[in-house]
């Protein structure tokens, strides 16, 4: 029951975030500060959520760190979402087999 409430909350907030601009905002946002803030938010959130969590998710911190480096390098070289994700997994798998 508690889980159902959690899922309902997840859905309600996510849908609101997506649908409110679509239905309410008919004019562009004017404030440069608000636009800048909204522009930076996703990158900061994802960065904060990625590290140090990636190092703590694996069996050994070293394999997580290697996956982090591999992910950054591949993404920098222009690899897409899926190749980067799979490569990070492969790096951890190989590292933990060798270590």
């Amino acid at each position, binding site marked *: 029951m508690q889980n159902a409430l959690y899922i309902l909350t997840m859905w309600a907030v996510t849908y609101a975030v997506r649908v409110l601009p679509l239905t309410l905002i008919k004019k562009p946002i004017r404030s440069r500060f608000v636009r800048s803030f*909204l522009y930076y*938010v996703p990158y900061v959130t994802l960065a904060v959520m990625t590290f140090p969590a990636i190092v703590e998710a694996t069996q050994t911190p070293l394999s997580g760190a290697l996956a982090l480096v591999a992910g950054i390098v591949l993404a920098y070289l222009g690899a897409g979402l899926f190749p980067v994700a799979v490569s990070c997994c492969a790096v951890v798998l190989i590292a933990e087999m060798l270590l």
Partner: protein
Amino acid sequence: MQPYSSFDHSRAFRRGLSDGVPIGLGYFAVAFSLGIAARSAGLSPAQGFIASLLTSASAGEYAAFTLIAARATLVELALIVLVANARYLLMSCALTQRLAPDMPFFHRFLIGLHVTDEIFGVTIAQPGAVDPFYCYGAMLTAIPPWALGTGLGIMLGNLLPLRAVSALSVALYGMFLAIIVPPARKDRVVACLVFGGFAASYAAERLLSFLSAGNRTILLTVVLSAAAAALFPIHDDAPGDAAEGAAKEA
């Protein structure tokens, strides 16, 4: 922008279906690792399936499952989902600029169901006004694998050897990196924010350990983004370009 009445909906729908297939394949693999997180949050396979089917938000769901695992309050959960999904606000704003003025209004409620990084990306990459049926096609092939992968991850997560779970658990972080690194390469402020965010998150984990992980994420996001917005406001003059640029690179 061409009038809505001139759209070829069935062609747009079929194009959406085929563009959604590769997205769905990628989603399936990543959702499996999300399922492992949902499993430790105590969700059943059916609950994970429904959560993913309704929400379709990688970072947002992952953040939510972390908080559910900690039995956080609904307010905390709502806040972290809001912060983790704030980028969809930008994407939806960008989409409004590409809708035909004579499009029936109810389509806005349906397009809003699944504004994900990838579906937004392929939608905005289409020329001219957005045909909602293109979005529906892409949703139809991309979202079910996402939900299915989550459910299977919950079901099979414990059957996999520890080593495989360890490897799969970094898939989501890999996806996050693929979203944040390309724009960091082009924009030095974003690059500083990404690496500053890493450092701040590491420091906060030690210095602000009395706060929950979700609250630390909210705090750091608001402080760092507001500081960057005040010090380095973006230069675009046409609102919506920022979101478009961000999503294309994602």
